[in-house]
């Protein structure tokens, strides 16, 4: 029991759960566990079943994409206070990139497979979850659009431009 109370408290302090309905929080806590990863360790890999999502308590997590001609490319890092992993919400529930610990990482791991079933039966819980995921997804999408603008307008340093 003590273990559960700790988890609930940890979860409640994470920005993801700010202002969450207590009942929903309890349900989610029931699907949560702690996880620790060492530098370089994979948290998940592209193509694997996506049955979890993660709240970062400490450390830096690298989202990587594999390219055949070299080492994987880190396209984004996420840090304490961030969440990552939304493939568990969308069929076919498989990861579309790798996630790897850049340094010592402490996470709260949420069992998405378990939550999917609960959300199906309890739409208000589903709403609570989606309400928290959608703004984050929108922010990342908008941020990445701006990164495209930056990469498209900042001259690449190794090629000469007209002008």
């Amino acid at each position, binding site marked *: 029991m003590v273990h559960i109370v700790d988890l609930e408290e940890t979860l409640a302090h994470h920005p993801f759960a700010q202002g969450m309905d207590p009942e929903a929080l309890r349900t989610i806590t029931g699907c949560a566990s702690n996880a620790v990863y060492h530098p370089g360790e994979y948290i998940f890999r592209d193509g694997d079943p996506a049955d979890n999502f993660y709240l970062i308590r400490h450390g830096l997590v690298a989202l990587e994409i594999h390219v055949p001609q070299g080492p994987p490319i880190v396209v984004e890092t996420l840090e304490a206070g961030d969440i990552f992993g939304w493939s568990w919400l969308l069929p076919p529930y498989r990861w579309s990139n790798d996630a790897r610990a850049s340094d010592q990482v402490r996470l709260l791991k949420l069992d998405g497979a378990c939550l999917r079933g609960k959300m199906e039966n309890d739409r208000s819980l589903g709403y609570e979850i989606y309400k928290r995921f959608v703004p984050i997804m929108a922010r990342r999408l908008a941020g990445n659009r701006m990164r495209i603008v930056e990469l498209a*307008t900042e*001259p690449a340093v190794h090629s000469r*431009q007209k*002008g």
Partner: protein
Amino acid sequence: MSYHPSVIGLDGLAALIEALSGDGFRVLGPTVRDDAIVYDDIAGVDDLPAGWTDEQDGGRYRLKRRDDKALFGYAVGPHAWKRFLHPPLLRLWRAEPDAAGMTLTAAAEPDERFAFFGVRSCELHAIAIQDKVFLQGPYVDPHYKARREGVFLVAVNCGTAGGTCFCASMNTGPKATAGFDLALTEFPGEFLVEPGSDAGAALLARLPQRAATAADIERARAVSERTAASMGRHMQADGVHDLLLDNLEHKRWDDVAARCLSCGNCTQVCPTCFCTAVSDVNDLSGATERTRRWDSCFSVDFSYIHGGSVRPSPRSRYRQWMTHKLASWEDQFGTSGCVGCGRCITWCPVGIDITEEVRAIRGE
């Protein structure tokens, strides 16, 4: 101090030109060339466009004979006095390579003094506006300053309004009220002369003349009144600053862009447009000379920064010109940039009419 007007005849006018010339001025005035009235050196009354008038409309300028021998019986032509104060092409400096690296020598300013003969009221206002731009800001343009200092201005109160004139609605004419040394009003065969400065009064005193009567003064007033009443165009200038800046996405900009050729004629004939660009020319001796020429906000390159132009579309360039002229000019220099001379309408090859564009944006 107040000055007393006089009346002079053609002999007095000839004496005026002669006196200016004799005092060392380079006298510039209206003369007929290439089927237009332009400003150039004049040696005497015979160089003035006697008996000529002009027919002006959107995209149209024709010289026509008058029934009389009036010397100033026309409106303004394609030239503005800015071509002398702010030359279309100007050498700035020359750089020569040498042992130290290079030596730069600024081009000398001309030591001549200009007398402008036949300056219209709208043009006096235009000169006053360019004075603000070039002389009264945080930076002074030394080239303009060198040319502007000591200019003797002989104004003419218009007796004929052109087809594209709208100075009356811009409060810039047709009667000259300030900024001149002498102002003429033409009567058949004679002129009322009003001094506007000590230098003007002193010069007038040297001319054959008679004192002006109340009837002469009334007659001159009637000339200006008649001209004011016969303006070819009208612009409602009240609130035009906010009107344009509140309508930067008005559909009319698309409409005018479909007609505008982006040729920049309006900016070249405008008596207040001041933009310039510099270019460097290298010669075979290894030296470089920098020149400055009039530029136009209608060219794509005008707003070029690395990667492209900020105003690639004719829509944005026309909008830049018109909002600058009528709105942001006020923010920058505390005055409108438009004096209602109508040149931009006359010399636009497709007859775009700034007064009509303002009306359209007003929704009239």
